[in-house]
């Protein structure tokens, strides 16, 4: 079956069995391996992506259901050289350790901050309850999201439209000469 949809803002078309998992379509067909698989049964949240702006577990969504819809993966949040405030805060505040949960966590956090620019800790915990992290104890993740919220609000005051702030394509360059892992 031919399926066309938008991934991270770009129109994509692929030929796939309609029951193929969105996760496999992203990873194997489109080569977007930022979205991870931790359990394949909707429990760990490592595969979280936004489908029309709402977080879903890509391991449970048949790609056939994505016809004509919009998907955002971690690759759509920003790239090296122009990280979003959220990504930058995860680096600065210890939100990522092994990093395998991070793409899913970032997507859930992005969704939270779009709806609620000033979440308290309980709201952050609630929003991330579907994303298991075995490394951090969540404390630094929560602090990263909190710090990102502050940055986004500050940027929103500068820019005027909070919706644009977390969007890498519109985001200013925030990197300060970080090294890439070799």
């Amino acid at each position: 079956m031919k399926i066309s949809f938008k991934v991270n803002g770009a129109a994509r078309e692929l030929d796939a069995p309609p029951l193929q998992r969105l996760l496999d379509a992203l990873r194997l067909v489109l080569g977007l391996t930022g979205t991870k698989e931790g359990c394949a049964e909707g429990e760990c949240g490592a595969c979280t992506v936004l489908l029309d702006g709402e977080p879903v577990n890509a391991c449970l969504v048949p790609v056939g259901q994505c016809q004509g819809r919009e998907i955002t993966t971690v690759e759509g949040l920003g790239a090296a050289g122009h990280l979003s405030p959220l990504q930058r805060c995860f680096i600065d505040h210890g939100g990522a350790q092994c990093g395998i949960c991070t793409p899913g966590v970032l997507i859930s956090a992005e969704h939270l901050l779009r709806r609620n620019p000033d979440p308290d800790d309980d709201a952050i915990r609630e929003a991330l309850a579907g994303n298991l992290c075995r490394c951090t104890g969540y404390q630094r993740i929560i602090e990263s999201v909190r710090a990102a919220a502050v940055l986004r609000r500050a940027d929103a005051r500068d820019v005027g439209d909070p919706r644009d702030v977390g969007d890498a394509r519109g985001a200013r360059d925030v990197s300060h000469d970080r090294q890439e892992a070799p």
Partner: protein
Amino acid sequence: MATSPPSTHSVGVSVPRTDGTAKVTGSARYIDDLPGMPGEIFGRTLRSTVPRGVLRGIRLDPSFDWSDVTVVEARDIPVNAILMISEEQPVLAEGKILHAYEPVALIACPDRLKLDRAARAITLDIEPLPAILDIDTALAGKDVIWGEDNVFKRYLITKGRGDAEGRAASEAGIDAALAACDVVVSGRYETHHQEQLYIEPQGFVAFWDDAGVHVTGSLQCPYYVHKVLKRALDLSSERVHVTQAVTGGGFGGKEEYPSIIALHAALLARKSRRPVRMIYDRTEDIEATTKRHPAIVEITTGCDRDGTLRALKARILMDGGAYMTLTPVVLSRGTLHAAGAYRWQDAFIESVAVATNTPPNGAFRGFGAPQTIWAIERHMDRIARAIGKDPVALRAQNLLRSGDTTATGQTLGLSVGGHACLEAALAESGYHEKRAAGPAVNGRVARGIGASVFMHGAGFTGSGERMLKGKVAIDLLPGGRLQIRTASTDIGQGTETVFRQIAADAAGIPVTHVDFAVPSTTVVPDSGPTVASRTVMVVGAIVEGASREIAERVLAEQAAGGGSFTEAGDRLLSREREVSCLKVYEPPSFIQWDDTTYKGDAYPCFAWACDIAEVEVDLDTFEVTVKNFWSATDVGKAIHPVMCKGQIEGGTLQAIGWALCEEVVWKEGLIKNPRMTNYIIPTSLDAPPFHTTLIEEPWPYGPGGGAKGIGELPMDGGAPALAAAIEHATGLIADSLPMTPERLHTLARTA
């Protein structure tokens, strides 16, 4: 928060983690993210389904099309042995089946769906035998599955009146010491299996070429894999190439097990002559890979009426599972931590690890210590109850100080931060006020607070580091840069970043001028395994020393010929072509350890901590909510404070999970809950707010001005602090883990 670090002081500053950008953009390549190689096929393991039996044969359905399926059986393996401490564990079962997930055959095929069908077209002919499934049955020794008596290993530590020739005389000595005490208290404490549950399942890609075998995978210890492959494939060292992919958590679970999956993938690649990708799904990962050893600890102690501890007698039993793997070392660490952080005049600590027909247990953060620290800390609370003393006051009274000796006779010298941790955590948490106010009951919810105090040995035990001779190479690169080559892996804890900080400061260059080579056995020297809280303290010290040596050579060149550090370095490089330093670890010379008597300096130093948990218990459902968690930890020196706190918090949450909700459910040797939906780890809603204090009592031999190892320590204190808090809230005394609502309910009914 620091951003761009000042050029020559990055230690102590939370610089951006160097693998951070790749991890937050999704560009970091974990093993299953690596693009498929040309001709790559998928591998899979066929396993026993009974915990014990005789393998009669493997039958392939003749009506199935096997033309593109590779099948590997035991007879295809050059040397059917996995070389760890012993090598009795076969790569694939031959004749004997000793646990329910024992690998029996391997298959590979280009089509994943066909691979599933092929697996179903193979019948394993196994005749079941009665299985040994618990420690008591194994110890009884009526039926023997290992050696002559099912015993993998025994240890005995004695001190004071426990010192005597032979076990019986030692026991008589400690019994006499106990009999002379005012107050004698006995208890029995139990702990259960725990699954590491790193979020990235284990996996490898393997292929062969003219240079030999190449495996890349999710792993902690490249040279462990190297050793196992070399032996089983009967290859010379140069023909085995092991590379670490970005690794999504390990916690010990990727210490020894990756050797097996790497070998399985390599065998399939060898027979099929194609690259093989082998990635476990979650269920296979939970079922087949190692877990924390369950333990039973019996303790009898004697003390004065005022609480001064005198004599300790302890017996530790651990379940090693079907094969030895690392069990003797786990048992050793457990035994060495059984006396807790306290002074004892007389001690007798014996331990036994036995074989059962369950999957081999193995490394998991803490490595035997969380089990025995659970026991001694619960026992301290029991003593406090018996003599009517505040549990924290009892701890403070007996907590080791500099100048005291441990149970192995080690005299503590520098960097002994137990008291500082205790004081900081008490003050931060308001423990005394909350404790004095008594449990706060509000409707059906009772609130309580409890503490634990503990220490954890950093680095390998005893003479381990001296025998291991860990190595690191530092290369001078053009442009005044350094490259670190080490087999110590970053599995999330931040090795890459911290090593760069240490090297940068040692050489006096910015942290951005230090590179970290991908750990591959072809390129990096053997720094020893990434385990035992040794990476920063031990390997970091080698990084520091080697970086300093390179910098000295550049500085000498600079003094002779002028120019900047970079210009001098470039001159040196153009003249000598290669400027490198391969350095071997030298442990502090005063460390003395006797492996036969188990006496002396068990560890170069200890990290210390005090944990305080505040909980609410629902008195109807016995659900426990952790409201706050304070931890004060003596880390020696925090190289990267943010990551250091992250280690403490992450380790503590694993301890909270172990204590309250994680449970491997067994039925006749099979795991009934091998999924994330039913093996429950804490979510963001279950995790408490953490209040983490770093105490710095520098260890002069540690890098960066005194860093000690703290990777494992945070796993030790969570469970007993929670038990003490639950006891404060409800009066329920839990001596066994986990403290699930069901078990607390049973405790309440039988109280």
